[in-house]
């Protein structure tokens, strides 16, 4: 497993880069502009320290990263299988990876959790579905102006909450 783990570290250098970049996040000089492709690009790496390259992830300082997370809980026996690491809380946020070993070789790496450059992932946490019943809304005087929902048809509108609101305002 150990070899596979090291290989993982190298393969998911992107995470390491992300982690390594993180300390610069609060620095005004670090222009980590969010973009659809993520900020872990080469431009982001050109920070003042310069040491924030992919190698950082496999080095000793990167030990809190994915390598720590992928070392436990095999979900299959033997050399082959898919292994999901524990989610490790790093100072930059939780990191969790899943690796697939085939014929003793690293076949796939899936990043399950990674702290993004703007720290959003920590707050994209699961929660129970909130429910505000019509009755509770009325009782609590929680005024709403309109309703957003999956598109209703002309027919569906008739019985909709939006229709009721429109009637109340008319």
């Amino acid at each position, binding site marked *: 497993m150990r070899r596979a783990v090291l290989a993982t570290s190298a393969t998911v250098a992107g995470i390491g880069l992300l982690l390594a970049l993180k300390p610069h996040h609060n620095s005004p000089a670090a222009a980590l502009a969010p973009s659809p492709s993520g900020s872990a690009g080469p431009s982001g790496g050109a920070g003042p320290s310069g040491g924030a390259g992919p190698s950082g992830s496999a080095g000793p300082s990167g030990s809190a990263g994915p390598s720590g997370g992928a070392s436990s809980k095999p979900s299959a026996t033997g050399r082959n299988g898919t292994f999901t690491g524990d989610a490790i809380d790093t100072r930059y946020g939780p990191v969790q990876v899943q690796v697939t070993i085939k014929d003793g070789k690293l076949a796939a790496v899936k990043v399950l959790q990674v702290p993004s450059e703007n*720290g959003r992932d920590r707050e994209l946490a699961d929660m129970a579905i909130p*429910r505000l019943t019509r009755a509770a809304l009325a009782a609590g005087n929680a005024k*709403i102006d309109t*309703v*957003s929902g*999956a*598109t*209703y048809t*002309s027919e569906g509108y008739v019985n909709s909450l*939006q229709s009721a609101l429109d009637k109340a305002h008319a």
Partner: protein
Amino acid sequence: MPELRVVHVMGTVVSFAIRTPMSSQIHRALDEAETWLRHVDAVFSTYRPDSQISRLAAGTLSLIRCAPEVREVLALCADIEAESNGHFTTTPRGRLDPSGLVKGWATETVSDILYAAGATDHCINAGGDVQTRSSLRDAPWRIGIAHPHHPGDLTAIVTGTNMAVATSGTSERGEHIIDPHTGRASTGLVSLTLVGRHLTRVDALATAGFAMGEDARDWIASLPDIEAFAITTTGRAWQTPAFPVSTPA
């Protein structure tokens, strides 16, 4: 009480609420907005065989002969298609159909018409997709997000002044689907609500994000101008940190 107008158009209902004191100019703008929506329906409806979009799809009309807004819409579609890695498409069923963008775009356009006429404080709801404008920070628009499993109930309330809110989803109860690769329940989406500034973009991105299912989460996190609230098929919800949710009073 806001001035209200309800228009049945584009296969749905568009509700206008205007808090700015009405003027003759705003009344005219409302008429113009209604006329514009009917025009958009006539040009873009895929249900009308004589619409420009239908004839363009059938090959009996060339793009150059279409109204300029057809080219505008198709260009906007292309942008979103690229940004969403093809999860938004103008050919959802193998045939030209930009409907996923048209409603949001038309609604944002009429919002601009009202604003230009002096109605700086208004809220337009087009079949569940909302565009608001206001300069009153202490009196934001309050928009309920429909609960996907309980018709008539809400799952959240968002507030804002200049804001677009679009929800994509099914009203059906989400089924627990087991992913054969993981043996776990899939984490597809039942409902995805996006909040941003412009409804053209927000509505189309919501369509794309919903199609992505579980992958929407990471994708949305990378969109700096978009906040999201989602309900998953596993009966959970998640939201981005700056999603402008309001707790009921």
